[in-house]
């Protein structure tokens, strides 16, 4: 009965949105804007969500979510245009698509490739939406059993895993980035005793660092500097023929699509790991499991399907920890969390009680956004690709203006700008030196959660850390954290390879 009721509510929400012309207009407008953002090399879906957060501030929460999720879905898909037609990924998420998309375009099959990415991206988003609906209640129920120790360890785990998996250079840099984010989160009056920490007498810092301007600075400013600092890239765009939906190819590749979607959802659900990793992992898996791996990189349709299904499935995957635990699954999800907080929505285990239909609303928006994306992709692709002819040097300064006015408009506080720009410049240097930005952002967001829950937990246990070892979830989280740290040491790697070789030797002896 409960399930039927939920299905009824779900379709009720969809019906409500589709009968509201404003919602439909915002849905299509945001999806197209997202596709444009994704298509332009240098602009990302994260930046799109960041800039639209300011514009949606005055909207009601549901409409704001329609706007932000649609730009997220559209932006993740839009990156494939530049990958296929220019061999320059529009976003990091579609970098893997370029591997086979561009060779397809060189063969004169760009329309086919874009049709395939459009359909597989839509399917990826829909599958991930199903996971949001089905898994969320279970995670929420499970998370309700969490005490402060679990929440502290979960926040810590989120920062560490994000640092481990997103570090382009050394893992330790990812962790440093996460702890720098935690430090930024310490600024302001502490939530238990209201003692001013690291405010240096500046009254604007008393309420802590505003998350959204920091996120806009962290994602927007480095991008602007990076693009303008580099020279104009003149790549010859491949011609785009008629867009074909490629339904037949998609049906023939259903198992591969489901596998890629599962990879996308799985990667998306890991805190702070974005669509780019999902795309690469899925592409790698498709290549490794293929009977003809030699065809990959030479215009293999399965390669395009794998990366595009996974990166869009990552959108829904990232929503799972965001909605149920308050931990963003990807950088755009971190921006979404900031936007939700601005609208007074606090994601976490209590969301199912405080706003029982919210998760269903998000799932309905994801479904509608994927459909709008498919329609827009099929109809407007030829027009959208014209944007690729506009030089990024003309775009980036305007993005700068949007970052500035957007950060200011959130709270009408000029101090936000004084915060956003230095954070952006620091983040640019960090990126240059191989420090990932995602853990820093996750640190800023999860810092208050880690701080308050650590102290609350110690208050309950009178200063004892023993409950960590007495409660199964916290023990598991603690062991994972320890393993994550220990696995980076050389002696651990040597030990593991020794154990592996011993096991292998034993097995081969047994076979003989």
């Amino acid at each position, binding site marked *: 009965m409960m399930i039927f009721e939920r299905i009824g509510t779900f379709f009720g929400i969809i019906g409500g949105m589709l009968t509201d012309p404003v919602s439909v207009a915002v849905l299509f407008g945001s999806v197209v804007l997202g596709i444009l953002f994704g298509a332009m090399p240098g602009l990302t879906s994260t930046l799109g969500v960041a800039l639209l957060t300011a*514009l949606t*501030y*005055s909207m009601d929460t549901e409409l704001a979510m329609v706007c932000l999720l649609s730009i997220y879905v559209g932006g993740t898909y839009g990156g494939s245009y530049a990958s296929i037609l220019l061999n320059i990924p529009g976003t990091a998420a579609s970098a893997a698509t370029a591997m086979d998309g561009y060779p397809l375009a060189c063969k004169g099959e760009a329309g086919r490739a874009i049709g395939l990415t459009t359909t597989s991206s839509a399917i990826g988003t829909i599958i991930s939406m199903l996971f949001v609906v089905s898994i969320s209640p279970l995670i929420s129920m499970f998370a309700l059993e969490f005490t402060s120790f679990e929440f502290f360890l979960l926040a810590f785990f989120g920062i560490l895993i994000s640092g481990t998996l997103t570090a*382009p*250079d*050394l893992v*330790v*840099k990812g*962790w*440093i980035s996460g*702890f*720098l984010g*935690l*430090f930024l989160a*310490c600024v302001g009056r*502490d939530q*238990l*005793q*209201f*003692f001013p*920490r*690291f405010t240096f007498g500046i009254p604007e810092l008393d309420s802590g660092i505003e998350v959204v301007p920091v996120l806009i600075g962290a994602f927007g*400013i480095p991008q*602007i*500097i990076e693009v*303008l*600092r*580099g020279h*104009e890239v003149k790549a010859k765009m491949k011609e785009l023929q008629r867009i074909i939906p490629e339904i037949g190819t998609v049906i023939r590749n259903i198992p591969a699509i489901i596998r890629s979607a599962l990879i996308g959802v799985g990667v998306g659900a890991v805190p702070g790991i974005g669509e780019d990793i999902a795309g690469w992992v899925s592409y790698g898996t498709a290549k490794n499991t293929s009977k003809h791996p030699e065809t990959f990189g030479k215009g293999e349709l399965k390669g395009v399907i794998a990366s595009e299904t996974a990166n869009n499935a990552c959108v829904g995957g990232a929503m799972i920890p965001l909605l149920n635990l308050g931990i963003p699954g990807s950088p755009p999800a971190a921006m979404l969390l900031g936007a939700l907080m601005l609208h007074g929505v606090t994601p976490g285990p209590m969301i199912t009680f405080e706003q029982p239909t919210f998760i269903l609303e998000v799932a309905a928006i994801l479904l509608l956004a994927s459909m709008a994306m498919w329609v827009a992709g099929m109809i407007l692709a030829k027009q959208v690709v014209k944007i690729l002819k506009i*030089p990024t*040097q*003309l775009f*980036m*300064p*305007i993005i*700068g*203006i*949007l970052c*500035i*006015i957007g950060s*200011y*408009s959130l709270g*009408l506080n*000029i101090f936000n*700008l*004084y915060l956003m*720009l230095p954070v952006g*410049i620091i983040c640019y240097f960090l*990126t*240059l*030196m*191989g*420090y990932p930005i995602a853990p820093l952002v996750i640190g800023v967001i999860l810092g208050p959660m*880690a*701080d308050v829950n*650590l*102290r609350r937990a*110690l*208050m309950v246990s009178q*200063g004892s850390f023993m409950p960590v070892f007495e409660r199964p979830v916290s023990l598991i989280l603690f062991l994972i954290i320890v393993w994550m740290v220990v696995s980076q040491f050389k002696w651990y790697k040597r030990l593991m390879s020794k154990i592996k070789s011993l096991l292998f030797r034993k097995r081969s002896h047994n076979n003989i």
Partner: protein
Amino acid sequence: MMEIERLRKADIFSGALVVLTGMLVILQAMKMPMKDSYGGVQNVWYVSPALFPLLVGGMLILLGLVLIRTALKAVGLEGIRSVLSFICSSELFSYFKEENNVRYYGVVVNLLGFVFVFIPHVDFFPAAILFLLVLFFMYYCGDHGTLRTLLKCSLGSITFFGLFFFSGLDQKVSATVSYPGDWLTFMTIAILIVYGVLQLRTYPEQARRFRISLIIAVVAPFTVGIIFKYFLLVPMPSEGLVIQLLDTLWYMEF
């Protein structure tokens, strides 16, 4: 990202900075109430506001040291020596003058000037037009020589405007001429346009780009500004000449 060898050398310094940050965090945290009373509440160590910063500071020191160790193992003492000799030599200045770095200064100087000098004091529209025009001219229309010239001009004008606003001169001038900052910005825009026309008139492709830049530099701020000001009802950080004019038009009763 830098290449690996340069990255390892830079890691020594970034690691040291991380350690320093961690130490500063701990030093500041030590000033927070640990066991003494704050606001009439007797503290215990585990409720102290210093607990989390101490943990974060400690971890930053530890991770910074690990990074330094890794970097030192990779480049050795010879690596440090080469970095130090590079810092002390004239090569450092030629590194700072490299084209990529000059391009970087161009963006950063203009962003800093726009945010810290123009946005708080000048009407949003002329400030944004000037910002866009300078960046378009630097990165879309001109060559590296133009970029260098414009960077020097940007530095000069930002310093001039900074002195004008922060010395309180604008307040004195505004007694005779209203919105002096806005007028000065318009004058700067006009000078820039004249310079652009004179500089690029012999290069048809560049001149075409300059025309495009000019149109976008005017259209974009008006589109963005009008959306924020009149549709989202966000008052601009500084409202002057243009916004007064727009207000008159917007709220005019026909």
